[in-house]
């Protein structure tokens, strides 16, 4: 077992800068998710940790060893690929043995490892089958088994669930989480799915354009996104952004939003309340922090601001109902309980939970 440290890592392909100074530190036993849209450099970073790609500059440490120039096989890592990359001509058993044979692990130890891992993953009955005879989920298990038998210091996952159908993906996600809890190995997990990152990781590195935008615990990334990119990327449906202004309102600071015919003032709450007025900001509100306003809500939840909004579109999904509402020139999306869902054409009085609202600087797009 070991920790992982990446210091100021750069990667260039010719003139193209893919990674621009990445710093990530994973404690021993931690589960770190690298998440971001395609082309953000997350897979390249993983390949660099694995040693499949060279490091242009910067340092990668596994445990107390700098591994920049160490071959993949000597880094004490195991990797699960999106395509599973099982050796097609070998049986499941041979697939799992391959790495141990290449490393000259003694036979009894090999057998013992196969036994242990196949019991752990419940693939004993598949050992003599070839990958072509397995379903997607089974292949996924075998790919994990192949990584597990070697008992590596570091686990790398490269979008391991993207080839599975939606239902199986959720199942395997739970499996991976259980597995990590049981095995407790340091894990780096690449995904473009923010839900996967949220559910699995102990810390999330949100990447965009070759840089880590934010590296923090899932709830912190969700509640206090470092900038508008992170705010928009994490969470589905994504956060609403409204252009606004900070103003003084009865001795307190409020956010002024241009409504249909007048300016609505939403009082800030808590830490955000004592900011100087007069500047332009972007107000970020998540869809679940918008609801139909009842007077008695004020007692349950402090920091609720209200404003009227005409309803443009209603989309029921069963468990919840999405509604698009107009606030001045902008549109915002709200997530409603079906019992309280607004109707098309109605002008609803919205309650906005300002304790969860975020303010961003319109020029730097950073969280204020």
């Amino acid at each position, binding site marked *: 077992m070991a920790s992982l440290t990446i210091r100021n890592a750069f990667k260039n392909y010719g003139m193209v800068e893919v990674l621009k100074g990445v710093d990530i530190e994973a404690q021993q036993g931690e589960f770190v998710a690298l998440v971001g849209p395609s082309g953000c450099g997350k897979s390249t970073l993983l390949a660099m940790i*694995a040693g499949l790609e060279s490091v242009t500059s910067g340092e990668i440490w596994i445990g107390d060893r700098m591994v920049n120039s160490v*071959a*993949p*096989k000597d880094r004490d890592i195991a990797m699960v690929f999106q395509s599973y990359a099982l*050796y097609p*001509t*070998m049986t499941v058993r041979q697939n799992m043995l*391959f790495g141990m044979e290449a*490393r000259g692990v003694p036979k009894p130890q090999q057998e013992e490892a196969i036994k242990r891992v196949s019991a752990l993953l419940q693939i004993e009955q598949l050992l003599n089958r070839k990958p072509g005879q397995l379903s997607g989920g089974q292949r996924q298990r075998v790919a994990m088994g192949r990584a597990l038998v070697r008992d590596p210091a570091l686990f790398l996952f490269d979008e391991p669930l993207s080839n599975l159908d939606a239902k199986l993906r959720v199942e395997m996600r739970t499996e991976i989480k259980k597995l990590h809890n049981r095995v407790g190995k340091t894990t780096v997990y690449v995904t473009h799915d923010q839900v996967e990152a949220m559910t699995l990781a102990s810390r999330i590195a949100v990447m965009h354009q070759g840089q880590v935008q934010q590296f923090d615990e899932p709830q912190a990334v969700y509640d206090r996104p470092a900038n508008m990119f992170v705010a928009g990327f994490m969470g589905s449906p994504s956060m609403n952004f409204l252009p606004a202004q900070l103003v003084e309102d009865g001795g307190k600071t409020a956010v002024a939003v241009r409504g249909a015919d007048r300016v609505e003032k939403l009082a800030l709450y808590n830490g955000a309340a004592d900011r100087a007025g007069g500047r332009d900001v972007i107000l970020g509100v998540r869809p679940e922090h918008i609801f139909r306003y009842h007077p008695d809500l004020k007692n349950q939840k402090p920091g609720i601001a209200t404003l009227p909004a005409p309803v443009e579109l209603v989309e029921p999904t069963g468990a919840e109902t999405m509604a698009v509402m107009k606030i001045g020139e902008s549109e915002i999306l709200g997530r409603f309980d079906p019992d309280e869902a607004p109707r098309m054409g109605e002008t609803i009085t919205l309650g906005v939970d300002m304790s969860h609202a975020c303010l961003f600087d319109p020029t730097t797009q950073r969280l204020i």
Partner: protein
Amino acid sequence: MSSSAVAADTVFDAEAANARRRWITARVIIYGLLTLFSLIYIMPLIVVILNSFRDLPEINHNGLIAWPRSFNPIYWYQAWDTYCVGGTCAGVKGNFFNSLAMTIPATIISTALGAINGYILSKWKFRGSEIIFTCMLLGVFVPGQLSLMPWAYLLGKLHLTNTVYGLILLHCVQGLSFTTLFCRNFYVNIPDDLIKAARIDGAGFWRIFWKVILPISPPILIVTVIWQFTGIWNEFLFGVIFTSGTQQPITAALVALGANGLSVHAYNVSSAAVLIGAFPPLLVYFLGGKYFVRGLTQGAIK
């Protein structure tokens, strides 16, 4: 049975009957044409086979293309063992074995090298590997005749003229472009993740080749072997130029057989010798033909 059903049975459907008649006519025409063309294609082979059993006076009397009036397998024996070619009266068996001794090693070596080349050029790319591949590819398009002079010079320098070894070397080199192209294009379709997984698993260049790549390779290796075997066996120009007499492969010897200086051409012995010479590639094709067709189209539909 209800009355309406009986009525339906007796109704004459003119439309359906016409369609059926048209279908039959079309089939007859298609199969008729196919049969005709296959007869045209197989005719020369049948003539040669028949002539290899006919007595010479009968051939001279009735012509080359005629129904046999005699049957004598002795000419096969003569062609193999006793007929005089270029002053040596031992049939074509020596040349047959020359061809085997040349074709088998040249096929194996060029295929093996092609597989390794393809593996490197697809999975272990390095700076300039694409340029090297392009250069090798040129060999596919350069006609063999162009390389006659360089080979004459090289084989002379190496003291390999008029030896089977010289031809083995020549065919290995000449075949490399094709075998490399075949294997490289096959390996390019194997996902790179497989190689990465094996590298992380601790396997090196050769272990990955033996344990991961080669086991996937039979389709393309069969294609390459058939291609090389028939190509090298049937090759004539290099054989006739760089060897003579007892060192010649069978293709070159067959020509000598036809031009033996005698006034009478022994069509029956020639026919038997030609068939002997054609037998090994045919055998290879019959054994591996279905893999050949399958292998050539593989990757095309993926």
